[in-house]
């Protein structure tokens, strides 16, 4: 009996009212979901329409819902940290709790919010932009989503079962090793991030092949919309960065779970090797979450300036340059780890070089606006605000790149300010921009402009209130990851302002959430499929798009293909639509969900060193792969009559 209570009190995180609250709300929400689904008899619908789907548009929507939830969780973490830091000597969170919170905040925001949000947008937009009916490997696409989902669930479970990781999102050895960190928290980090990382690698391969091989006839690479280009390049970075991370995580897992000595203090392990491997992935990772939003901004700025993108070719080449450079700068994250001068010099310069292609893009956007007819819609506001705010983050990055100066900034609040300026003014502004822009294509109605603009202004101004003072805080000597600080150093007032800004961002986010709900009820219907006077193919089809996307695959002859079609139409040169043919579409499949459930079981087993649980999980995963290999009948045919019916309902066929 005693041993059982002992076990339970370690299994469930105890002693903290906030966590009991979380326990209760998780149980309540789960029960509520079960109840609603059962009451409205929606189980079958959920299973058939969503959980087993291989339709890229639905997978995209599931990614975005999950990412928004994770953004909320990461945001709550941020507000908890900011509350604790608002005044010197606060006791809202104790040290251990604070350490868990910044770790989960960073990990969740980057891996379980920013990346899946981007995956969601690319799932929705890329096939539509290139005139494809789905991605190259729809089944694999579903697997990717469910692996991400399993990873995210596993990671969040750590909050209530076993305890959260507390070594930062970069999980530096030896602190993250078992000698100094014996609990299960770091195991959660390793397994959860690993599982979703495998999904990310698969997504990269999937979209690379999709974009290379499945473009509409006539759409050469250099006629492709810029967002698709950005995803092509991002996919390449993902494909080549993630394997390194897979290995790094696996090696630390071996250390922690099987007693290996890669990064340990004992037996010749090299803690610095972890830092090296982590950042070999970690630096490219920041471009993985940045380049896609560069693509989004390119679309949105061109659309609402009513101009073609300025300097298309050089925009592409600058992304290619970034992808090449991003793999040779990683050491700038540990300039102060005892490197010799030649090493630091090399990586200082390689890092600075990235400013050049990035600057090219900034100026090309500015000159797209030049001589344009600028329309200040909500997506456009996010895109415009990105330019000055991100430039601040970028140029402070260049300051960090100067190694001797970095000796003074490293691990200070200056660094924290830098990366929020890039991650928020870049990535977050970008995904909010894309969310508003493609929302009508996803759901068939627009998000409200007035409420959207309110959310924008509140969030953007608060962002500046929050992160501009943080640069000074760094120069005043405050380091990151401190749960508290004494009075008398002059940090208090600055921190207080920062906290006000953070809550302001929360208000902005709440307004945005409110706007989503309000617009679902009262939003303007998009009946044309082209609410923004768009330029690319996704706007040529009805909103929301039919299962098969394009009733007939368009033929492309120029950039901005849809704009050209509209011009042809105005000039009366519209081509007669081709006759419909039956369409092959991939079948639904339960294997991805089931496989990810096994993955979750395996992950959970490893977290607790319970091999009796982990091994069946692994066997289940392999079983799913074998089962899939024997499925030969994985596509169905949509007959012409059904296509006609659908198109007629969308008003495309009289």
């Amino acid at each position, binding site marked *: 009996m005693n041993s059982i209570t002992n076990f339970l009190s370690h299994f469930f995180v105890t002693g903290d009212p906030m966590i009991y609250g979380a326990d209760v709300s998780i149980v309540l929400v789960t029960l509520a979901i079960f109840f609603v689904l059962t009451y409205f008899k929606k189980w079958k619908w959920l299973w058939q329409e969503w959980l087993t789907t291989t339709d890229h548009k639905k997978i995209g929507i599931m990614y975005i819902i999950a990412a928004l939830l994770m953004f909320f969780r990461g945001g709550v973490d941020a507000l908890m940290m900011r509350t604790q830091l608002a005044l010197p000597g606060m006791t809202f969170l104790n040290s251990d709790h604070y350490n868990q919170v910044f770790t989960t905040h960073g990990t969740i925001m980057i891996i379980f919010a920013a990346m899946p949000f981007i995956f969601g947008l690319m799932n929705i937009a890329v096939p539509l932009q290139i005139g*494809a009916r789905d991605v190259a490997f729809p089944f694999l696409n579903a697997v990717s989503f469910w692996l991400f989902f399993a990873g995210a669930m596993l990671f969040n479970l750590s909050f209530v079962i076993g305890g959260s990781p507390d070594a930062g999102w970069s999980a530096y050895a030896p602190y993250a090793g078992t000698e100094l960190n014996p609990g299960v928290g770091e195991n959660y980090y390793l397994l959860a991030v690993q599982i979703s990382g495998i999904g990310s*690698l698969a997504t990269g*391969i999937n979209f690379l*092949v999709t974009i290379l091989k499945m473009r509409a*006839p006539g759409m050469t690479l250099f006629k492709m919309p810029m967002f698709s280009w950005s995803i092509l390049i991002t996919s390449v970075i993902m494909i080549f960065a993630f394997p*390194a991370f897979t290995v790094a995580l696996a090696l630390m897992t071996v250390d922690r779970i099987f007693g290996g*000595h890669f990064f340990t203090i004992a037996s010749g392990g*090299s803690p610095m090797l972890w830092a090296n491997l982590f950042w070999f992935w970690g630096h490219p990772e920041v471009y993985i979450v940045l380049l896609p939003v560069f693509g989004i901004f390119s679309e949105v700025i061109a659309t609402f300036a009513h101009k073609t993108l300025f300097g298309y070719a050089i925009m592409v080449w600058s992304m290619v340059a970034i992808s090449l450079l991003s793999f040779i700068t990683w050491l700038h994250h540990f300039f102060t780890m005892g490197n010799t001068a030649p090493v630091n010099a090399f990586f200082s310069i390689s890092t600075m070089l990235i400013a050049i292609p990035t600057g090219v893009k900034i100026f090309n956007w500015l000159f797209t606006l030049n001589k344009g007819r600028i329309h200040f819609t909500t997506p456009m506001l996010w895109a415009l605000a990105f330019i000055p705010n991100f430039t601040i983050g970028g140029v402070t990055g260049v300051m960090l790149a100067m190694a001797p100066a970095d000796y003074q900034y490293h691990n200070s609040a200056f660094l924290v300010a830098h990366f929020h300026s890039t991650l928020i003014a870049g990535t977050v502004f970008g995904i909010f921009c894309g969310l508003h822009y493609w929302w009508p294509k996803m759901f068939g109605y627009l998000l409200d402009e007035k409420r959207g603009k309110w959310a924008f202004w509140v969030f953007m101004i608060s962002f500046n209130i929050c992160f501009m003072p943080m640069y000074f805080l760094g120069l005043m000597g405050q380091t990151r990851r401190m749960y508290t600080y004494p009075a008398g150093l002059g940090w208090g007032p600055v921190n207080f302002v920062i906290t006000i800004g953070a809550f302001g961002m929360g208000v902005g986010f709440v307004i945005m959430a409110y706007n989503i709900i309000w617009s679902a009820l009262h939003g303007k219907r998009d009946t044309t499929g082209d609410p923004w006077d768009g330029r690319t193919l996704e706007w040529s089809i009805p909103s929301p798009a039919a299962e098969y996307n394009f009733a007939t695959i368009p033929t492309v002859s120029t950039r901005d293909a849809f704009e050209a079609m509209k011009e042809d139409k105005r000039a009366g040169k519209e081509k007669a639509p081709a006759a419909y043919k039956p369409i092959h579409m991939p079948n639904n499949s339960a294997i991805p969900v089931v496989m990810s459930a096994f993955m979750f079981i395996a992950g959970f087993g490893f977290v607790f060193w319970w091999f009796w649980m982990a091994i069946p999980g692994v066997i289940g995963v392999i079983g799913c792969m074998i089962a899939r290999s024997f499925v030969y009948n994985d596509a169905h*045919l949509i007959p012409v009559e059904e296509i006609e019916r659908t198109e007629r309902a969308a008003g495309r066929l009289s």
Partner: protein
Amino acid sequence: MAESLLSLNPKKRKDLPLEYSTEEGDLKIVGFWVFLAAELVLFGTLFGSYLVLQSHTAGGPSAHELFKIGPVMIETVVLLVSSFTCGLSTLELRRHNVKGLIGWLVVTVLLGLVFIGFEGNEFFTYAAHEGATLQTSAFLSGFFILLGTHGAHVSLGIVWIAGILIQLARRGITPVTARKAFIVGLYWHFLDVVWIFIFTAVYLTGWVM
């Protein structure tokens, strides 16, 4: 004829071998190449880690003391020959000869099993007789994980080829089975490439140092 999932001009495909004849086959082969390119980085990372830890023996046995030339050369030759027989199986695939294809794949699998047997024996000898395990030192962690990852890939390859053999026996050579047989061949050759580097970076440098 049904309009298919993708719209790429299928004309070029006509003069290519059977496995490229469907769009699906075409996509999967390219996708697999990309996957192999990613695997290059995966193994690269393992190699980099191994090489910096190579001298971190922490008082345990060193590479020089541990590695025996005989078994390693047998492993190497067996794997090289299996890559060759795998190449012959692809050749038979191109000739539309199911029997030849199945035959050479069976030989390949058998050689793979021999390889795994020798490797397992090597690991076992180190652990049982020299007390050298993954937990002994950073060097040995690196060694066992680098070679173990390769060995796990080979084992997976064996299971995979076995699955394809069943499908080939049942269905003969179709665009789908042809694609599968071709892709597993790529995988097998790739593992041979990795072994060449293991042989060089682990064993040869171990003997040199």
